[in-house]
């Protein structure tokens, strides 16, 4: 009986003695929404964007104070810099709700491997935030810009990244896990969306930036940044970014503009796109075939074309196929020749089809990649022409 009592006591004690040690009240936390990493003179320059909850909540009238505050500090390692920050902040930084990590342009060029270690190692960081690169700016400058609508700039960065990925296709959201995985393999390369500041960088951190209907300083996604072995090597144009989106099967919806047979233009809205990459070895020589299956609707007609005829739809399908294929072919050759990194995942496709043959060419993959024959096949299907049959242009000309 006394043994039983002692056991019970021990069990209760284990709860109450160990209890509360990681307790944090909500009003003791500084919620970090974004983290920026720069490199200045061989030191890491860390910027954190901390949310001020009282300014965000819609209940209270805004006092005119900034909804976020940024702190920064320098250190030989990222960890040191973050810990040093406690001398600046009123509360303990809380990273679990980190939404986005911005890497400075200079840091990206020097290599992103080192600073990302802490972020993926520390347990307080979750792995669901996105990573982007600042183009022609430091991460600090990007995080200092205040944004309208979304009071927390980090949320704006994340939301517009996701929205443009979904409906335009020039950005791709990439989280830390994907980056770490790609950094580990020599054959693949990582791409990240790049953000740029439009306007005067110093005005952006003023509250006036969100007080006017036309903000003087805006944050804009500029396209995809290509990395080679963890180092930034270049920025893709909008067209190239979109083609890359098609190849990596990341396109949900985008717009294509094509010329009409009798002059004028017509835009279509792509509603669905599915990409299949097939690798093949012919006598040990690798080959890639890409099949892209696209569904689209006619979105805008600014020319004289009779959409009620099947012939016209056929024309639209053919023309769209041509445009997409041409652009993709061009992008592939640019990347093969200028960047010389496999950002498409062709290596993986080959690996999957024939692991044995892949092992043979794995070592020289990046040289083989430059000359790799790629055949792109696009199949377009126009499903709808919208709520109107023929264009207004048609009618006025007919009268």
């Amino acid at each position: 009986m006394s043994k039983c009592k002692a056991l019970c006591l021990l069990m209760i004690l284990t709860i109450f003695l160990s209890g509360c040690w990681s307790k944090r009240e909500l009003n003791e936390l500084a919620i970090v929404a974004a983290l920026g990493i720069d490199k200045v003179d061989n030191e890491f320059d860390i910027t954190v964007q901390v949310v001020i909850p009282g300014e965000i909540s819609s209940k209270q009238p805004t006092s005119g104070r900034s909804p976020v505050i940024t702190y920064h500090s320098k250190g030989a390692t990222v960890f040191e810099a973050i810990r040093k920050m406690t001398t600046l902040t009123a509360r303990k930084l809380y990273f679990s709700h980190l939404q986005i990590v911005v890497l400075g342009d200079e840091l990206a060029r020097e290599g992103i491997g080192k600073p990302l270690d802490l972020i993926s190692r520390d347990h307080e960081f979750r792995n669901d935030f996105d990573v982007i690169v600042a183009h022609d700016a430091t991460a600090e400058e990007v995080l200092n810009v205040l944004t309208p609508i979304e009071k927390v700039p980090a949320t704006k960065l994340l939301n517009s990244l996701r929205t443009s990925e979904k409906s335009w296709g020039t950005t791709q959201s990439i989280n830390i896990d994907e980056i770490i995985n790609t950094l580990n393999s020599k054959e693949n390369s990582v791409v990240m969306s790049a953000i740029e500041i439009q306007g005067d960088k110093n005005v952006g951190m003023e509250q006036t930036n969100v007080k006017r209907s036309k903000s003087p300083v805006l944050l804009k996604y500029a396209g995809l940044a290509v990395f080679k072995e963890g180092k930034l090597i270049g920025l893709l144009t909008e067209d190239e970014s979109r083609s890359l989106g098609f190849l990596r099967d990341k396109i949900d919806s985008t717009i294509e503009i094509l010329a009409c047979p009798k002059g004028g233009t017509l835009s279509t809205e792509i509603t669905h796109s599915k990409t299949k990459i097939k690798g093949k070895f012919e006598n040990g020589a690798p080959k890639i075939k890409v099949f892209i299956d696209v569904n689209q609707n006619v979105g805008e007609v600014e020319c004289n074309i009779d959409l009620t005829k099947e012939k016209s739809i056929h024309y639209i399908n053919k023309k769209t196929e041509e445009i997409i294929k041409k652009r993709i072919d061009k992008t592939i050759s640019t990347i093969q020749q200028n960047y010389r990194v496999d950002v498409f995942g062709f290596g993986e496709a080959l690996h999957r089809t024939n692991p044995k043959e892949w092992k043979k060419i794995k070592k020289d993959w990046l040289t083989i990649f430059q000359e790799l024959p790629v055949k792109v096949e696009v199949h377009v299907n126009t499903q709808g022409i919208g709520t109107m049959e023929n264009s207004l242009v048609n009618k006025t000309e007919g009268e």
Partner: protein
Amino acid sequence: MSISKIADTSQNNNQLYSSLSQNLKLIKNTLGNSNDLVIREITIGKAEQYTLAIIYIDGLSDKISISNSVIDKLMLDIEDHQDTEIEKIIRYLRDSCLTAGDVNDIFHFSALYNSILKGDTVILIDESSTGIVTSTQGAKDRAIMEPATESVIRGPRESFTETLRTNTALLRRKIKSPNLWIKTRIVGEVTKTEVAVMYINDIANEKIVAEVLARLDRINIDGILEGGYIEDFIQDNKFTIFPTIYNSERPDVIAGELLDGKIAILVDGSPFVLVVPALFTSFLQSAEDYYQHWMISSLVRILRFFGIALALVAPSLYVAITTFHQEMLPTPMLISIASQREGVPFPAVVEALIMEIAFEVLREAGLRMPRTIGPAVSIVGTLVIGQAAVEAGVVSAVMVIIVALTAICSFLFPAYGLSNTVRALRFPLMIISAVVGLFGLMFGLMIILLHLCSLRTFGVPYLSPFGPLILKDQKDALVLFPRRALLTRPRLVSQKNTVRGHKYFNTKKRNQKNV
């Protein structure tokens, strides 16, 4: 034990004296000359040769029936009777003269006291040591009214009253079967409360009936004032906070339980009828479930299970998540809650405890206070708790929402007993969540679940049909199947007679069959 042991003085066990005056003197003495004791001495017969006394307690007996069937008969109809032998007179009175429904002889003082204190009338005759009891019970009782605690939209609107006879009659009116049996026990040495055990003979499990009667017989206490006294004595596990005996004031609910093979215990003086064995699911089922469409009932039952979970864990979950696991909240929600907690001086758990206790205080005050000052309490309650506390920054608005949610959910139970349990268990869960977060909450819930699994009520596992899992009985547990699928009784309760009905055919089909 009850009747034979009640003798508190040796006189009570004595036989009646043959002298009337001696008898009357002793009765008056024993009752302490209480002025509600009525003794009417009359003489009867043409020659006024017999003196007799009519004894009853004012207020317990029906004066009209005493005057009609006792006094009238004795004083007017007996005139021409010429017998001289006392035994013959008594037999004449008993067999031919008194017109009351129930007439018996008594020989002892103890029986005499029992009778008059029940409201019967005793007639004692001089020179005889035999008394006659006529049943004239007629104490004032409450009318049958709508149930105050279990209301339904559709269904019978009658409820039990404080009178045992009325209550047994209400059940008999629902179940007109000779197999509806009543076994009575007198419990309480001083109060001598009548306790009736009702069951349907060929459905209820005899072993459980015998066990109930045996447990009732073992009760040895001065008084039973409500079913709660009995409940506490006869339940299997004295230390459980969960109710293992069901109670209801609706005759239709009790009739339904009897048809399930359960056993009802009616206590004189209480409109709440106990039911054993009570399963956990009984407390989450309302009478109305069976009166409305089964799909609606099923949805409502699922809602109730959800409600009990919410009422139990909502504040603990809030405390655990906001003090330990902030990463579990969506970011906008975290920011919103954090902004409301700005300036709140207490940790989340203290905040939760303040609000929950304040709510319990209000609830208890609302129950106990005189009805006329009810509005005052609710105004103070809503203003202080709802608004002022938030505006003053003592508690956050989210906490008020959580408490309100918990409160509403705890009113979701058809049976009040379980609601109290959940209210009480909320507090230890809150504290353990504040100490070790979600681990603590899960630990607490595990303990509760294990405890529930270990409970038995009159030998039947409390959590059946979930633990042990009885697939056949799932038809009337978490969801309710259509009535035509409810053809068997709960297996563990009744055991022998489990067939409730047979397959229902539409008229068209049956006609085809007959042809």
